[in-house]
């Protein structure tokens, strides 16, 4: 959760040039660490993570472990009836932490509902992360406080927001970047494709970060596309990268390449992070209905956290001390989130009328007036004891 110490590779003047690692075919899978945790050298992408010190590597591990712990805790909270729903990102920690940690504070993120790991890297308050899933708000936080829009549920819609935001950055003459996260299924939506049209046409500083986690609820990625998703972008004139999404260093490198291009006026980049949704779509889903247990096993062997742990071990960094520290951190995070959840005050009935408009509206004001009279007719102006509506 150390946004400030990272993300500078992209503006590193010694980094490789603008065309780094772009493969028109998109078929090349960027990998810097093997599933066994072996660091393999890669002349093109190594320079983009050469500033990642041992300490930072440990901190990436810490973030990934914390994010996983958030998932586990939130799932438990859901099972205990404290949350209405939770969309786990289990298995996608490297994609989200690698990308999230590559960003600068002034970059702006437009994500879907699954990017709680990115939000964590942006420094989101742990209570804010679950407000929506508890049913206490439609946005957990003020987007401007962490420069990240709140979860978007309409598949793909946020990619256009990112593109528009990027057009604004461009108009402002700034070198920030808009980064949008979306899934493999989202690539089929018109909005995502139109976003690429606009991004390419205006050469807007936007990064399209697609987490190909192989599933859109019950639909396998091959139903959306027979070819690799990274190839989609090239048809719009947008360079693309295909990266091992379970390799946190590779993801960080690829994201930095894309950010750097955008900052330098080189326009959009599309990143396909190849990863896997190891959990259900949401806590309401039962993936055993539609997918093979073997597939899950295969991917468990590529677990992103196990991988970074192996890397640390090979480097002699996986001390007991570190493990304890990470465990403590994860515990603290989980504790804080749980406390935030159970202590969250219930909203007030009349809150439903707030913020529909930014100035008075005669229709709504009348309805609010009538409803508060209705609530008052139960002898309780705040409505706390009023009967609930639907039966």
């Amino acid at each position, binding site marked *: 959760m150390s946004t400030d110490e990272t993300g500078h590779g992209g503006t590193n003047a010694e980094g490789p040039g603008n065309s780094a690692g772009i493969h028109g075919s998109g078929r090349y899978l960027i990998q810097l660490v093997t599933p066994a945790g072996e660091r393999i050298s890669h002349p093109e992408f190594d320079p983009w993570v050469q500033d990642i010190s041992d300490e930072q590597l440990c901190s990436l591990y810490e973030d990934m472990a914390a994010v996983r712990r958030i998932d586990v805790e939130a799932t438990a909270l859901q099972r205990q009836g404290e949350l209405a729903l939770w969309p786990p990102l289990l298995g996608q920690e490297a994609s989200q932490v690698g990308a999230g940690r590559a960003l600068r504070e002034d970059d702006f993120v437009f994500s879907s509902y699954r990017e709680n790991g990115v939000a964590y890297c942006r420094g989101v308050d742990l209570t804010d992360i679950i407000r929506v899933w508890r049913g*206490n708000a439609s946005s957990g936080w003020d987007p401007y406080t962490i420069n990240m829009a709140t979860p978007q549920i309409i598949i793909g819609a946020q990619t256009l927001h990112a593109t528009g935001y990027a057009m604004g950055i461009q108009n402002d003459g700034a070198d920030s970047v808009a980064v949008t996260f979306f899934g493999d299924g989202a690539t089929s939506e018109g909005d995502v494709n139109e976003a690429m049209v606009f991004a390419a046409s205006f050469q807007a500083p936007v990064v399209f970060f697609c987490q190909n986690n192989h599933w859109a609820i*019950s639909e396998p990625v091959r139903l959306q596309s027979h070819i690799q998703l990274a190839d989609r972008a090239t048809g719009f004139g947008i360079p693309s990268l295909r990266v091992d999404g379970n390799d946190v260093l590779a993801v960080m490198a690829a994201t930095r390449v894309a950010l750097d291009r955008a900052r330098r006026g080189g326009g959009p980049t599309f990143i396909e992070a190849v990863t896997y949704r190891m959990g259900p779509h949401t806590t309401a889903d039962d993936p055993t209905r539609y997918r093979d247990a073997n597939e899950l096993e295969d991917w468990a062997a590529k677990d992103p956290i196990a991988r970074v742990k192996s890397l640390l071990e090979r480097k002699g960094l996986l001390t007991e001390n570190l493990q304890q520290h990470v465990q403590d951190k994860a515990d603290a995070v989980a504790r804080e989130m749980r406390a935030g959840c159970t202590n969250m005050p219930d909203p007030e009935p009349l809150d439903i009328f707030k913020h*529909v408009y930014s100035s008075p*509206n005669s*229709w709504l004001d009348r309805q609010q007036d009538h*409803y508060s009279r209705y609530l008052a007719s139960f002898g309780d102006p705040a409505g706390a004891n009023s*009967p609930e509506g639907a039966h």
Partner: protein
Amino acid sequence: MTQMTFARAINAGLRKSLENDPKVILMGEDIGTLGGVFRVTDGLQKDFGTHRVVDTPLAESAIMGTAVGLAYRGYRPVVEIQFDGFIYPAFDQIVSQVAKLHYRTQGAVKMPITVRVPFGGGIGSPEHHSESPEAYFTHTSGLRVVAVSNPQDAHTVIQQAIASDDPVLYFEPKRRYHDKGEVDEAVDLSTALPMDRARVVAEGTDVTLVAYGPLVKTARDAATAASDEGVSIEVIDLRSLAPVDYATVEASLRKTGRLVITHEAGQSGGLGAEVAASITERCFYHLEAAPVRITGFDIPYPYSKLEMHHLPGLDRILDGVDRALGRPNSLSGLEG
């Protein structure tokens, strides 16, 4: 007669349509192996194959637009929109193509497309999963719009909708999916109540209460509660939202002289406005009081902790009944 859930009743209706007409084809997201997120299409792909029950890529405009092409080719596509809030990307294809093609081609091209839409709130979901978008479609000429309220109707009307040569928006009250009811699977479609007709589901003499979809149950409960207080409510299940069967509503109104309409959708421009305006037009001199609308508010659907305040419940409906009857109510003394 079999006891079955609402969801199962639709499933059985879909199965019949698939069996009876080889041109019927189901399309949507996750409707195949998974059987739909609400399991409404459970088992159908297994039994009818991937060419009859088609898992589509994730793109609603394309689902609707390819359904149009299939209709051109003589098919009867039954499209599932996973949740009400995801129908908007398909809005252009629905409004500019599905609704208009029969008219555009002077009857040459039929659009026997059924669009199944789980709608309404009350299930504790986040945004976009509890919308009531029906008024957008009832205002769209060329479409037929129905909303079912019980397993038997769900079973019968889905088959009538699929058999209709006109496009039909078929709204399913998702919070009632698990409700059970008796279903006669041997129902004869030709003699069953046509899908464009309303039904009086509880007789009464003091006030006419019009509801549809999820609120029919609430309305009936309200009628039961009111009868304890000596108020006799006639409950009408609209069933068809476009066209509204005004003959049935009118007959009731002429008897009661008072009208309450309820729906979950926002009040302004909702179907309640249309019913109130048309009934006022048709039987002004029989009205003893202004029609009352008990509806959702003019707000985006709120987060689930507060959704019960947005949704019309039994007490709010009864308060509206009191208003229609001129009895003391929460707005007493306000109106001039």
